[in-house]
């Protein structure tokens, strides 16, 4: 007896018919868990195809849906603006496929929670937009032997590599260390057309399906470089570095960074700062916003169980239930902390 229900057999019939997948492959897919770290342009399309294929998902994202996301982040619609991405993505994906399990985490990915968020899944899809998060993911995955994909897109271009700890180069082998903040262009500064993260996200989903069902060849020991301007798809051979600080010496520098003291960070390319409490809170945002609305400089824009959006002195303030706060338009870290302190003590 197959563990698949009759409805599932029908739903997945077209990929079950595909000889490389078959019933066995579908059972594997339906048993698998994939973490999607960052559900933006890359993550929304990758998670959509994985959800449709019957894969269980763990969605992780720290942001809320904004109007400027809708041009490329296909999981979200106008009515999702202001909702946490992980929540909106789960809601929408579950409408596409109600038979899979989806966990959502409206959380910042940092050394304190990285292992907890990732360990236990079969594979991780990279949907992040920065190298700090990717290097932290690299540490977690190498440490625990979890395969993951590095993938990125900007403008008309994209890059990807399938990383299997022990078998392929890791991110440190490929790029050594994260480029200094500000040295790389971001989607905010350089722009992006929807199809670039779209193509990369689709390939990520294909890589994941092949890996989980156990057929085909993955982008292992290879770096895929694409440019839609001239439709170039090229593959560069990359090699493991025998002296690699991360995968050879098992020195997990990003994971062991004691970020607990660094609770305010600039969100690159967004003129935003994130401040998080030293200990995770569980705020009643409705009550809190009610109190805050009595302060003259504060205007409450919208409130839900998970997130409250307010303005303070013309700056947009997004407060999450965990106490994490994102400040748009703050001048520097100091100002960000000082504004955050108006909301509660950090």
């Amino acid at each position, binding site marked *: 007896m197959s563990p698949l229900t009759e409805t599932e057999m029908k739903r997945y019939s077209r990929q079950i018919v595909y000889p490389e997948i078959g019933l066995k492959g579908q059972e594997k897919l339906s048993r698998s868990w994939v973490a999607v770290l960052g559900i933006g342009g890359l993550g929304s399309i990758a998670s959509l195809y994985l959800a449709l294929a019957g894969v269980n998902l763990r969605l992780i994202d720290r942001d809320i849906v904004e109007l400027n996301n809708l041009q490329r982040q296909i999981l979200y619609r106008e009515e999702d603006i202001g909702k946490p991405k992980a929540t909106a993505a789960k809601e929408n994906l579950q409408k596409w496929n109600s038979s899979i399990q989806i966990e959502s985490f409206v959380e910042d990915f940092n050394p304190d929670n990285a292992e907890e968020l990732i360990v236990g899944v079969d594979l991780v899809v990279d949907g992040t937009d*920065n190298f700090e998060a990717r290097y932290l993911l690299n540490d977690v995955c190498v440490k625990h032997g979890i395969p993951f994909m590095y993938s990125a*897109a900007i403008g008309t271009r994209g890059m990807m590599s399938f990383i299997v700890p022990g078998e392929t180069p890791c991110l440190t*082998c490929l790029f050594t260390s994260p480029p200094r903040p500000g040295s790389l262009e971001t*989607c905010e500064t350089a722009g992006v057309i929807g199809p670039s993260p779209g193509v990369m996200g689709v390939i990520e989903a294909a890589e994941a399906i092949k890996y989980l069902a156990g057929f085909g060849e993955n982008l292992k020991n290879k770096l895929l470089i694409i440019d839609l301007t001239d439709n170039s798809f090229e593959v*560069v051979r990359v090699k493991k*570095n025998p*002296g690699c600080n991360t995968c050879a010496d098992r020195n997990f520098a990003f994971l062991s960074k004691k970020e607990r003291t660094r609770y305010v960070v600039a969100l690159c390319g967004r003129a935003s700062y994130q401040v998080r409490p030293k200990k995770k809170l569980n705020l009643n945002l409705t009550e809190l916003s009610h109190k805050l609305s009595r302060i003259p400089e504060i205007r409450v824009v919208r409130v839900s169980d998970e997130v409250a959006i307010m303005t303070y002195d013309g700056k947009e303030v997004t407060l999450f239930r965990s106490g994490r706060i994102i400040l748009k338009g703050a001048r520097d870290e100091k100002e960000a902390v000082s504004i955050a302190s108006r909301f509660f003590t950090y």
Partner: protein
Amino acid sequence: MPVTVRFYLGIREVTGVKEITLDPEPRSVRELLLRLKEKFGEKFSELVLTPDSSNVRDNVVLMVNGHSIRLLKGLDTPLKSGDIVTSDVVEITETIGGG
């Protein structure tokens, strides 16, 4: 043996070509980049090298036979000049971070 140099993304915009071969092979990456500067002009160097020319830029990856030179000897990474069995492949690309 000649060395094959391949360019990708923004680097290719400046070189206008995907690939060239240099013969005779330069002895090091530093020498290779000097030869490429002669060929493609100052703009190439500006794109690839830090302002003090001590290393490749943060957003650039230069690989010799699949290994980033940051993990080898940087600009002093030798190329196998005179090796008649294998020829080196050097690849230069920008890094992409968005998502």
